[in-house]
């Protein structure tokens, strides 16, 4: 362990630490542009120069490993002068357009120029001009501002696994571009905007919308996939302006998937802002009491067996808990939170969570993916698989579509029945992992597949003391929470398929949809449909009563991610118009139905929730689930397994209402690039 002195402080660090990292340990901040913890070291911006004794020249600290007895000065006059020189060179070609630059106020170059910049320019020649590049509907470019740190190139190549960004030319003619100016086709492309230390790459949908100091920042949880990415919601007034990632090493590191980042404009369109009641075939605006009375008129004297409820993909745990309580009070056992019909067993927690945990992927040494496309279903989790894959010695096998997952894998065919008939023999792997996706479990024979996957995991040694390699990858943020509160059919009750079947046959007369839009609404037949949700999507179109709820940015709610990690989302803005937080709607409805639920505040509800389901006691951690028998052995039908997500950019009511996501669908799914704009557009 080399010992060295930095700014007069002795420190002992691990070998192969760089001077910059060692300086951070002692608390000396070194300015940098190209260096980033999670990317490879480039050493090309030269901003991190420090003074090392006995070295004839200042040293780039990001690329220099520490050595025994080094004496480093990060704040000496020589280091400061060197950095001031670098800064002057960087500013030679950097335009003075901060007042019209979207990075203004959160720009590394701006901040560091305050510390190292010269107060006037000595360069009287023309600045260089670089044509802007097209990078797709999410990333706006202003290439005059680029300082060639190549963070974006390294991110695309290393983390996203989509090597389409590069630097062409050399010297003064060096330009960052995608190959032939194609769109950056990655589900993680938005992160290059965060990485860009200047305003060269900015967010296209957010262009010229707000300044960072005008925004109110709310720490919350993303619900557009089941990863539970930690996000910061930036809002101004009643509007969500943008969503940014927060650092959480256990989940998303510091990345955020494009849908989670850019679908937030969908929160502005197609919103349900008042209750509606269907009168003579048309939805008419109504008051809350009129809507509740209309429901009471249909429900009050109805046998509980004729009532059913389905919860959607973005429901918070509190409202699902309240819904279950209301349905139980009404005598209904027809409940389900699995609107895709996945055969998940709510009795055994280990059967429906990602037991290995996302960070645990890095400890695995073999992976089998069955019926899932993690790149589309959970891009952040896929980035973690890629990270592990790049370290080597990590054979990956896939049963299902042969999609580009950004890492190399062996395809074991698409037929899951054939796979389980002759499963691969156990290998030398110490910590093998199995990921079972909704593509497999949502099939009618899902229960048999679940049982077969459990046997397979046990056979290859994926489940043992200190290691659980059985994982279910969910596609919906509400699923694990719904299973945790037991929003599944009671004894003799109907599941989603049964409810739809019953509704089309007339055996179910009232269906309560809590934000459930991914079901086949044509199968609801003549049933009286109550839709509670925030967007006028499929469910609301079919509904007889519409109760306007709150989207995830508009309520305090608990969500459980695919790992079984309980996290709290916080309200950033208020719901529009007369819309209310979802649990309060169910609570108010219960009073009208004379079955008043026993809680009057969120705190009371949560206290009851924790009492009924102790799993909600621990926030932000994953509690190891007990391994038990689950699944139903049975015949597995031959046939391909297919990921449920065809279009990553439109999977839920928010992203379907988003114009940005519509543009992404056009560009990346339908393959239509808009007419190329010239460098002088806008």
């Amino acid at each position, binding site marked *: 362990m080399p010992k060295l002195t930095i700014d007069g402080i002795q420190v002992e660090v691990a070998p192969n630490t760089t001077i910059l990292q060692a300086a951070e340990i002692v608390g000396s901040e070194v300015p940098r542009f190209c260096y980033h913890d999670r990317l490879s070291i480039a050493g090309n911006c030269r901003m991190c120069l420090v003074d090392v004794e006995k070295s004839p020249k200042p040293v780039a600290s990001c690329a220099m490993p520490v050595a025994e007895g080094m004496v480093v000065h990060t704040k000496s006059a020589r280091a400061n002068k060197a950095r001031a020189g670098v800064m002057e060179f960087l500013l030679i070609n950097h335009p003075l357009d901060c007042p019209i630059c979207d990075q203004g106020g959160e720009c590394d170059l701006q901040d560091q120029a305050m510390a190292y910049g010269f107060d006037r320019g000595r360069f009287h020649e023309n600045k260089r001009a670089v044509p802007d590049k097209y990078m797709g509907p999410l990333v706006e470019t202003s290439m005059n501002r680029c300082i060639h740190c190549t963070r974006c190139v390294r991110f695309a*190549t290393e983390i996203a696994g989509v*090597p389409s*960004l*590069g630097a062409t030319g*050399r010297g003064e003619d060096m330009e960052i*571009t995608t190959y032939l100016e194609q769109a950056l086709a990655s589900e993680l492309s938005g992160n290059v905007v965060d990485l860009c230390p200047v305003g060269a790459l900015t967010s296209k949908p957010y262009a010229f919308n707000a300044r960072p100091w005008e925004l109110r920042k709310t720490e919350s949880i993303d619900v557009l996939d089941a990863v539970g990415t930690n996000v910061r919601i930036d809002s101004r007034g009643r509007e969500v302006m943008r969503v940014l990632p927060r650092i959480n090493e256990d989940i998303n590191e510091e990345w955020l998937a494009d849908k989670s980042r850019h679908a937030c404009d969908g929160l502005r369109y197609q919103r349900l802002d008042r209750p509606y009641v269907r009168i003579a075939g048309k939805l008419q605006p109504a008051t809350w009491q009129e809507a509740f009375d209309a429901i009471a008129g249909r429900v009050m004297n109805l046998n509980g067996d004729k009532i059913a409820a389905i919860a959607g993909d973005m429901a918070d745990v509190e409202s699902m808990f309240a819904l279950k309580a209301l349905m139980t009070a009404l005598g209904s056992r027809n409940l389900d939170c699995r609107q895709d019909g996945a055969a998940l067993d709510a009795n055994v927690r280990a059967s429906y969570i990602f037991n290995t945990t996302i960070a645990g992927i890095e400890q695995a040494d073999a992976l089998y993916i069955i019926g899932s496309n993690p790149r589309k279903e959970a891009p952040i989790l896929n980035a973690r698989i890629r990270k592990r894959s790049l370290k080597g010695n990590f054979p990956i096998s896939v049963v299902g579509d042969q999609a580009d997952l950004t890492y190399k894998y062996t395809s074991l065919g698409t037929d899951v029945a054939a796979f389980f008939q002759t499963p691969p023999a156990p290998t030398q792997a110490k910590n093998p992992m199995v990921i079972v996706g909704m593509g497999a479990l949502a099939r009618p024979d899902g229960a048999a597949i679940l049982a077969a996957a459990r046997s397979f995991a046990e056979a290859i040694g994926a489940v043992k003391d200190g290691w659980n390699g059985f994982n279910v990858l969910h596609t919906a943020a509400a699923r694990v929470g719904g299973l945790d509160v037991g929003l599944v059919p009671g004894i003799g009750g109907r599941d989603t398929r049964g409810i739809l079947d019953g509704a089309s046959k007339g055996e179910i007369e009232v269906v309560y949809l809590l934000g459930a839009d991914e079901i086949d609404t044509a199968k609801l037949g003549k049933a009286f449909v109550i839709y509670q949700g925030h967007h006028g999507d499929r469910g609301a179109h079919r509904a007889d009563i519409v109760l306007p709820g709150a989207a995830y940015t508009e309520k305090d709610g608990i969500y459980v991610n695919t790992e079984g990690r309980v996290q709290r989302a916080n309200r950033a803005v208020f719901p529009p118009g007369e819309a209310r937080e979802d649990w309060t709607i169910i609570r108010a409805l219960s009073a009208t139905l004379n079955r008043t639920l026993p809680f009057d505040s969120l705190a009371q509800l949560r206290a009851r929730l924790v009492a009924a389901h102790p799993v909600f006691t621990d926030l932000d951690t994953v509690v190891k689930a007990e391994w038990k028998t689950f699944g139903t052995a049975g015949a597995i039908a031959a046939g391909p397994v297919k990921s449920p997500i065809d279009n990553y950019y439109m999977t839920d009511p928010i992203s379907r209402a988003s114009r940005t996501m519509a543009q992404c669908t056009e560009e990346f799914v339908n393959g239509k690039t808009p007419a190329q704009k010239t460098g002088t557009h806008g």
Partner: protein
Amino acid sequence: MKRALHPEQPATFSFSTEMKARADRIIAKYPKGRQQSAVIPLLDLAQRQEGWVTKPAIEHIAAILDMASIRVLEVATFYTMFNLSPVGKYNLQVCTSLPCMLRGSEEVLRACKDRLGIGLGGTTPDGQFSLHEVECAGACVNAPVIAINDDYYEDVDGAGAWKLIEALKRGDKPTPGPTNGRDASAPIGPPLTLTDLPAPPAVQDFAAAKAAFEKAKAEAAAKAAAPKT
């Protein structure tokens, strides 16, 4: 000059049988998984076959070497000796770096422009000649130099450049190397230094030297032994 792909590109590219064999030999030099090291020689082969590096060639090489097209494009745009647009049969690359400039490369360049009627970066309408200005060609000792395709024509002046072009137009192939009668980089004309053999070193008489030494030693001893007066 900004280096970018030419706006007009052929539809396809593939290596000829001979070039394919050469490419395979080059790739085989590198360990498995490191084939990407062959990207520069393969781009060179493509340029030798087509005269310039085309977009289909870049994509073809990327596919052969299992790398992203942008990585090959980066290399092709970085090295100025890859022609990204079509060049004539004879590509005149006039060095204008400092030593060549001091020895008259401006005159050479002017002669080329006048004789060919094209500017820098241009190609004659018959597709025979292209003219480029290049950075140091690495032959400063024979400055000024014109590289025509792979051959160096050294110690050229304006008239010499004119004659070179005339010869090429006739279809002759002038001999590469110095054009003013020098032998490689030896001086012009007879040698001015080291013209005769140096005188041999004087022969030393070691026996006489030893005798003189012994004599001096004996005298010193006798002087020391003599009684003091």
